[in-house]
């Protein structure tokens, strides 16, 4: 069973639909026990990182999430679900985040339309199991105004240009996070989830 973390925001249904399409059972849940038992966990996201952190805190999910990732259990963060993994964000006057990926979340530079909304290319910096069967430079669907910048640049296995070069796919062991929405990115998005889940089932580390 795959746990999709419900913290009262986000289009969780699309993620669940993507799992169903790939033949996986999933459950939308905010219960720590269920999340801890899951074979893989997805943290979806739309909205603001500060609100997301507040919700996770109220639900008592901060520690369980940190623990899962510390144990290198399969975990996939999407959009704001990527941003909250960082040390902190500039958004909303500044908020502390989960501190799992050392680095900051910054506002996209001025000079272009914000939010960065639409399909953009992901350049694969390294060969990685999540990219299997996905061509280098394939397009994925983005909608965001902030982006994460890891201190350790090697964690950004995929990059995207939008006035700045951002890490659009972050990976460390069984932790994967994307700034784009795989569940809204057509066949390649589904493929990426499938790769992650297969990788998770095999229990291999990257």
């Amino acid at each position, binding site marked *: 069973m795959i746990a999709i973390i419900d913290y009262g925001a986000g289009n969780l*249904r699309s993620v669940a639909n993507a799992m169903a399409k790939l033949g996986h059972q999933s459950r939308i849940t905010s219960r720590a026990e269920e999340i801890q038992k899951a074979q893989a966990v997805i943290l979806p996201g739309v909205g603001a990182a500060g609100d997301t952190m507040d919700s996770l805190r109220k639900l008592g999910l901060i520690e369980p999430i940190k623990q899962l990732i510390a144990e290198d259990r399969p975990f996939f963060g999407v959009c704001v679900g990527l941003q909250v993994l960082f040390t902190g964000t500039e958004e909303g006057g500044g908020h502390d985040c989960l501190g799992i990926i050392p680095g900051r979340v910054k506002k996209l530079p001025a000079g272009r339309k*914000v939010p960065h*909304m639409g*399909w953009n290319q992901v350049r694969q910096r390294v060969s990685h199991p999540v990219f299997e069967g996905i061509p280098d430079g*394939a397009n994925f669907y983005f909608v965001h105004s902030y982006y994460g910048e890891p201190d350790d640049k090697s964690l950004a296995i995929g990059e995207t240009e939008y006035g700045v070069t951002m890490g659009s796919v972050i990976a460390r062991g069984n932790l994967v996070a994307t700034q784009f929405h795989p569940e809204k990115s057509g066949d390649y998005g589904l493929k990426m989830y499938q790769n992650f889940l297969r990788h998770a089932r095999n229990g291999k580390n990257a």
Partner: protein
Amino acid sequence: MLTKRIIPCLDVKDGRVVKGTSFVRLRDAGDPVELSAFYYEQGADELVFLDISATPEGRDTLVDVVERISEQVFIPLTVGGGLRTTDDMRRMLKAGADKVSINTAAVLTPELIREGAAKFGSQCIVVAIDAKRVENGPRAKWEVYTHSGQQPTGIDALFWAQQAVAMGAGEILLTSIDADGHRAGYDIELTRTISEAVTVPVIASGGAGALEDLYQALVAGRADAVLAASIFHYGMHSIPETKEYLAKKGIAIRIEG
């Protein structure tokens, strides 16, 4: 590079697509689920559903339709038409819509934009503006119309677009009433005026007849996306053909699969 989006728009009444039933390849082109799946496979970048049901029952049907579409179509879905409250919005988002589009209700109650953005995030809130040209020349002006383009409001379209964005709109869906349905091209001047004045993406709508029209809206009109109904529904041009045409002319377009 961020690509320009090609967006088919489906008018839905009581759960049925009301335009464009001339697809020979579909069993039932009036079924929004089947038509959506077809456009998805063809490479549409997003889909917009405009509900023109006259009754609440008709709208309930749309919720069910959106649920079924989101089970098999993995691109962004926008739903508009008759949404008046944040509860209406929530219903559509819960059904699987990624964005909701508001038009008349936003003009009547601008606070709805702020409330929607606060509850669901700006990226969910599309403000649709139907604009009619009231002055030509260097001081060109457009007036906002509501109630499906029937009711003049006296509000300047440029002012309203900026106001909507200031209140939290994440995107503007801009339709030229003058151009809509004529298949003689988008109102390029309107599109450029609004697109240059706001910080959020603008979808050009109304008037697409030839592929060149889409090109002009994206280049001369500086639109971030183009919406079209008839040219796709009546099979005048397919989505792959449209994308190939635009890509050849140097527009950044998503072509894959």
